[in-house]
């Protein structure tokens, strides 16, 4: 177990190093010149060169990357080119909002996805099953900005149940969480359905039924706990999908998280922020996967960590 953990940690670090190298190289190769973005259109060539020198952007790639890494090791993500603030400060100030949205989204996707999957499995082969599976398919495929704007229009503008974007109270959280959750719910519904169908085919379920147990008792007490565990283990992996979604959803709802920060930074070639958010997201994804792998054997004893 310890050897496994050690190996996985080293792997994770290598992945993060790789992510940082690839992102840094891609941003370096970009035809857009960040210095022109900082300097603005009225700057003289002298001003542009001064800024380039100040930021060390006149150095060769390897030197720039090395400087970045050495600072990174001490937890310094540098200063934003455009905002001129510490990237760490910018990310830390926005992280709570993104985490809150993540919790909301996970609750939504589990609540919606698991119940849809459960019903579909129990009513397998019926019209209900088919309707739910089509719905889950739509949920998985619908672009999040469409879902977001649709929810905004119906529930915030027309019905005024929720505020139109913004941040602060639980009411602000509902629509963005739902938008994020609908995508995940589709996946969870499909996984839950197949997992449940598997379990319902097991001998012990047949035995329970033969003993004359009530249908609800069989489903909720005997089948569900076994069916739900492998699905729950997916949450860790879910973080990756989530990180992709926050960029869109946070922008639509004006949610002040790191996705919005990343989107604005990309538009302005604010490289330190793009690097910072990419690394934080990669870290979250690696951590999520690691946790998913570590808890797997506790959920399913057949899995052994080696």
């Amino acid at each position, binding site marked *: 177990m310890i050897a496994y953990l050690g190996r996985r940690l080293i792997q994770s670090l290598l992945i993060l190093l790789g992510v940082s190298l690839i992102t840094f190289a891609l941003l370096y190769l*970009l*035809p*857009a*010149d960040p210095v*022109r*973005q*900082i*300097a*603005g*259109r*009225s*700057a*003289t*060539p*002298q*001003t*542009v060169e*001064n*800024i380039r*020198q*100040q*930021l060390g952007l006149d150095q060769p790639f390897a030197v720039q990357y090395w400087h970045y890494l050495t600072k990174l090791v001490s937890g310094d993500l540098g*200063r*934003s080119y*455009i*905002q*001129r*603030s510490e990237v760490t*400060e*910018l990310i830390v*100030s*926005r992280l709570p*909002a993104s985490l809150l949205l993540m919790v909301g989204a996970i609750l939504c996707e589990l609540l919606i996805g698991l119940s849809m999957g459960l019903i579909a499995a129990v009513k397998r082969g019926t019209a209900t099953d088919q309707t739910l599976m089509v719905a889950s398919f739509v949920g998985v495929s619908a672009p999040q900005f469409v879902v977001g*704007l649709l929810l*905004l229009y119906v529930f*915030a*503008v027309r019905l*005024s149940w929720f505020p*139109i*974007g*913004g*941040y602060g109270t639980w009411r602000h959280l509902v629509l963005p969480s739902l938008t994020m959750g609908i995508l995940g719910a589709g996946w969870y519904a499909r996984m839950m359905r197949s997992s449940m169908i598997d379990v319902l085919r097991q001998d012990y379920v047949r035995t329970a039924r033969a003993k004359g147990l009530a249908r609800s008792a069989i489903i909720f007490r005997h089948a569900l706990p076994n069916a739900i565990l492998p699905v729950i283990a997916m949450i860790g992996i879910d973080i990756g999908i989530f990180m992709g979604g926050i960029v869109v959803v*946070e*922008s*639509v*709802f*004006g*949610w*002040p*998280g790191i996705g*919005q*920060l990343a989107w*604005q930074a990309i*538009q*302005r*070639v604010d490289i330190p922020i793009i690097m910072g958010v990419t690394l934080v997201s990669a870290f979250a994804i690696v951590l999520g996967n690691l946790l998913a792998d570590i808890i797997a054997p506790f959920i399913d004893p057949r899995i052994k960590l080696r």
Partner: protein
Amino acid sequence: MKKFLASTVAASALALMLGMASVRAEDAVDPNAKQGGAITITYKDDVATLDPAIGYDWQNWSMIKSLFDGLMDYEPGTTNLKPDLAESYEIAPDGQTFTFKLRHGVKFHNGREMTADDVKYSLDRVTNPKTQSPGAGFFGSIKGYDDVAAGKAEGLSGVTVVDPYTVKFELTRPDATFLHVMAINFAHVVPKEEVEKYGADFGKHPVGTGAFKLAEWTLGQRIVFERNADYWHKGLPHLDKITFEIGQEPIVALLRLQKGEIDVPGDGIPPAKFQEVMADPEQKARVVEGGQLHTGYVTMNTTMAPFDNVKVRQAVNMALNKARIIQIINGRAVPANQPLPPSMPGYDKEYKGYAYDVAKAKALLAEAGHPDGFDTQLFAMNTDPNPRIAQAIQQDLAAIGIKASIQSLAQANVIAAGGDKAGAPMIWSGGMAWIADFPDPSNFYGPILGCAGAVPGGWNWSWYCNKDLDAKAAEADSVVDPAKAGERDKMWSAIYDKVMEDAPWAPVFNEQRFTMKSARMGGADNLYVDPVHIPINYDNVYVKDVQ
């Protein structure tokens, strides 16, 4: 020494008296204005910084103007220069020495009085390469600038503190734009002790002499300004508080405006909703329309065949159906026939430009040796409506035989292609087009049409370099005497007429500005489409529903 006293300050003797400032100030205040109240304004993008030496964005430009002041400013809602922190100024006859007398009793938000030392410090700071100011180049005519820019000197030798209320600028050449330069944000006055206290984070802790002071800044969410009770301009500002909510999509902002939750959507009316808003009389009544110092144009790279032939460039000018292109943006513009926008001094009303004439365009192409047209590329920014406008241009070009393939890219990539001599044959400037930094005709020349901008990484995307015109431009800018402003404007008109003869651009349209506001907002319409305080003049607007 010949003196040009500021017109608003009649007698220099009186000007030294404290009361003078407030008398003049009171005159400028709207008598209907009500005192108090709070408004909410939304923006999509984060506010990067509120440091006047650095901020250069749509959303922070006007915010900085409300937190800080410069020696000069403009009468609200107009492009007329007036002294601001300066009480009066003198220009030496050679146009190379400017002496400003400062107002007495102007206080920074930290309570300390602003003096001439602060003016000098602020200019030394903005030109110092360590500050990384995008506006440093504006001060190029001040003596000693080159040494500071090259890192050889810490301060500008051309800026002298004569006494605590007098500051003198010596220039290396006569510069007619200098008073405008003293009005741009980059020349706003900052207190040394606060800049040193916060260092690189001064932009998050701005302290100025402006009408408002920063009360709260929650990163990525909200900025709150509150009224500066000690503001030297008595009677201003009218509002007690302004809350800027950040991160709101324009479409969401419009919905919130319709529900009465906000007062001004800072990013304007989203294009997709424009017709709907204008079709509703109740909403249309709250839209203010105004010109802006903007021109949208197609650049043609004059160093790349076949655009190195002036006839080809003129043919493109005749091929564009500008009225149809304007329809794509819901008529939110007026057709342009020259680089300068109509509201800019020096705009040539007599100039007719190239009329839309497909037959003549084809004939010119044939004369240039391209009877069957040619293949080329048209670069455009990839956000709506620019790809659609590029398609309309593409169709117009196809009508005279030019087959242009569209390269629709992110803004930074189009800018990079334009700054590369072999990068882009044609660029549609939309989304990146020139909006003047200050209302002076010279501002449309140097970086975008002059030889200085035709360098790698520059903004002269047509790589047009006419040394003769550069000399004429320098000559026009040496006419410093305000009494000769009309003469100078004519010189600039002639320069732009000559540019159009060489046709490095096909000017397409001048965008109009449409600002929407809540019913409770008061103040003259021109405050909401202020040509300088973009997007709106926060200091002078007010709300009607306060007691």
